[in-house]
């Protein structure tokens, strides 16, 4: 028998999964107790290559099960079913400051997973693997519709779940980098929520007039969802990260027009000048930019811009007046915003006001600023283009990869449960009818 032909088989189930689904990687038929390296490679849309690898020893039947066996080294160690995804890092020789973010959500992320003999740490391109498979990771479930929205002056994309509807709705806001970022809204639609990603910093209006949008831009977005035939107008939530949080907290407490069913705020703060809106928040940041620090590697640390948390109520949203459920997600190693301190202050305000039963606070040690959907690689530092100055800076977001990745997984799961509970069932106190949703 030709010994040089390997019998090793490699399987990944499911081979086509949603980005937040777990998979099982199984190697079979290798020689018993042999040293193996499992390797993942992904070329992202901007052409950069990412990889991850882990060292295993096959068992007496020649098998390795990544969900059950221990990696003894590589880009992750221990028992980590999804380690080959969240520990992906730019290949040696890549430009610094890269961050992986999917632009085209209608096509899957394709990852090649291979198994090599012996414990390798480099030179994967020079060796022939024993076996290799391709895995697809999708942001959009089958049947989810992607609808670009330009009416009413909006720059947005609506994702409708599969099925007749109607569905609860959600407005999805990202942070200070601007752009129309679709992937999180696409994934939420795959979970049954009609979600609209909204560009509010680099939208058509701002690009054409040079002006920052006001509250009525968000009201337009809310009303668009509210009157959409496939959206339940009385069940609209908002989800935001970073600067998006500032917008949401203001709206949740003070808007007469936008009545939120619930809100999720990730890595943000309630500190902002209470008179005015978005422009005034950005000006407030500029005013405090003297508090910017730099690490020894010249990375920008912006967490002190809003510290210390003011006691003056004209400088922070009075969350004691909040009337809808709020989930706060913060990383205790956030180097970009003082999210943890803000969350603690908000908690105190709500306890004193007697509405802290509305608050769900998730605080993660050693997690950084960019708390994203699970299994995506953690960026501790990346190149960031400041909206107003158009400068590209190396910004420190914070977080330690292992704990940050665990935080992403836990936070996403809890976020989905929170949204499901508040959008799909339950009666808001005071509300009269319960639709059989």
């Amino acid at each position, binding site marked *: *028998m030709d010994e040089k*032909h390997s019998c090793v088989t490699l399987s990944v189930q*499911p081979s086509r999964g949603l980005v937040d*689904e777990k998979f099982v990687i199984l190697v079979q*038929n290798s020689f018993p107790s042999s040293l193996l390296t499992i390797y993942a490679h992904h070329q992202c849309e901007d052409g950069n290559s990412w990889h991850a690898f882990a060292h295993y020893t096959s068992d007496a039947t020649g098998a390795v099960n990544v969900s059950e066996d221990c990696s003894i080294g590589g880009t992750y160690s221990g028992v980590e079913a999804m380690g080959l995804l969240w520990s992906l890092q730019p290949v040696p020789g890549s430009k610094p400051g890269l961050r992986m973010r999917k632009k085209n959500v209608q096509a899957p992320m394709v990852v090649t997973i291979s198994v090599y003999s012996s414990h390798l740490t480099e030179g994967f391109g020079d060796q022939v693997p024993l*076996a290799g498979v391709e895995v697809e990771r999708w942001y959009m479930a*089958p*049947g989810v519709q992607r609808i670009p929205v330009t009416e009413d002056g909006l720059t947005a994309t609506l994702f409708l779940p599969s*099925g*007749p509807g109607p569905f609860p709705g959600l407005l999805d806001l990202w942070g200070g980098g601007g752009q129309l970022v679709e992937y999180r809204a696409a994934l939420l639609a795959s979970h049954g929520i009609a979600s609209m990603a909204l560009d509010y910093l680099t939208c058509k209006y701002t690009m054409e007039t040079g002006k920052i949008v006001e509250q009525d831009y968000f009201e337009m977005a809310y009303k668009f969802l509210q009157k959409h035939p496939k959206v339940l107008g009385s069940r609209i939530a908002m989800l935001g990260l970073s600067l998006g949080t500032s917008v949401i907290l203001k709206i949740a407490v003070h808007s007469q027009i936008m009545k939120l069913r619930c809100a999720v705020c990730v890595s943000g703060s309630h500190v902002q000048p209470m008179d005015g809106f978005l422009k005034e928040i950005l000006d407030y940041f500029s005013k405090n930019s003297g508090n910017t620090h730099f690490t020894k590697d010249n990375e920008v640390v912006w967490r002190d811009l809003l510290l210390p948390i003011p006691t003056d109520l004209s400088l922070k949203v009075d969350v004691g007046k909040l009337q809808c459920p709020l989930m706060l997600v913060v990383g205790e190693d956030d180097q970009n915003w003082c999210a943890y301190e803000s969350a603690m202050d908000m908690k105190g305000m709500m306890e004193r006001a007697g509405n802290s039963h509305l608050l769900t606070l998730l605080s993660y040690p050693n997690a950084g600023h960019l708390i994203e959907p699970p299994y995506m690689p953690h960026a501790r530092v990346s190149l960031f283009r400041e909206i107003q100055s158009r400068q590209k800076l190396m910004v420190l977001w914070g977080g330690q990869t292992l704990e940050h990745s665990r935080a992403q997984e836990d936070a996403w799961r809890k976020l989905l449960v929170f949204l499901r509970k508040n959008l799909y069932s339950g009666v808001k106190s005071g509300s009269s009818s319960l639709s059989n949703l």
Partner: protein
Amino acid sequence: PILSVRPSRALVDEAFEVLVENLPPVSPFTLRSLHHSEDGDDWEAYGHYFSDHSGRVSVSEDLSFGGTYSGREPMGLIWSLRPVPGSRTGLRLRKKDVTTPMLITISLYNGHEDFRDNSPLVSMVTERWYMGPGIQRIEITDGGLRGGLFIPPGPGPFPGILDLWGGGGGLLEYRSALLASRGYICLALEYFKTGQMKSTDLSFEYFEKAYHVLKDHPQVIPDRVGIISLCLGTIVTLSLVVESAEIKPSCVVCISNMITKSPGKTLSGFHRSIPSKFNKIRVDENNHQIWRDVGLALLKEPSMKVDVAKINCPLMLVNGCDDQNWCAVETADDISKTMNAAGKGHLLTRVDYPDTGHLIEPPFSPHCFAGNFFVYSSNEKVIQLYGGKTKPHSDAQDDSWRKILSFLRHHLYCSHKAKM
């Protein structure tokens, strides 16, 4: 309510979990699957359920109280698919374009008997794929061959499989695509176009060329090539294995066996030999043609049988005991007898499935009990009875696929590992 189907994109032989939550407790609901086929027909399956006190229905765990399937059937919404009322007759569900998935919409309705009067409360689309990610499909046209070659991703090399279908003719790629998704380089070969068997030259040479496409392929392990076949394809396979000097497979799978050969090194003869016994065709109460007695009559002619005593490779025979299209089990008995007498019994693996018909397909394919068939000798379109009862036939498809995969793996992947 919240409906989830996991995984929402799966291979055709993979199971899924259908779960509904947030329902009113202990109420009647119907889950229905709907598929619009490439031929434009609508297929459906449905099961009647009751939610529990937490407002939940789990197809994997709960009982269906009726519909197109009953009992605890995680995949009932797929294997019990049948044409919707009012459809054309004699339909068979077979995917032609394997580069796209089968789309199946799973919906939830209130009520049981009258569920169709209501609009669905919630629904989800699920994709069922024959081709895994990274599988390459290459059209084979050189040397007059007509086929589709499927190559798995990865460095290889891989074992190869030649895939031969039966009397309906045409190029059917779905089983080959699925086998490639399971790690084999697989060639689906068209050896006559539907309705053109009479005019097709079925020389050994055609099949030998196809076999070499596999054997000589740079990514195929040359001494690890097997053959899988069904119905008429089984005679082709056994004839080639016995009489062709070029075709020496590592193992062979024959589903729904036939053994009547044509003399010499051409396979064209069987379009004469089979019609010679057409007087044995019976019809049932629906005017569906039962051909199994044709086979029984032919079995009585020793000169017309492939000499299976000469087979030297492992052979797996898969048959349905309720096959009304051919006497598959009797044929397998005959093969067994001959091989045992020749001391070759150790090469033989047989599985016979009760209440199972002729068309034993990959798992979860809808059971085709009777289907349209074009009779080449008389240019007639008839409906042939294939047999089998849906539930046992579907179980047989599931079980036989797993047994076939393990047989192929044993002989094509790692037979050098002797077990003590």
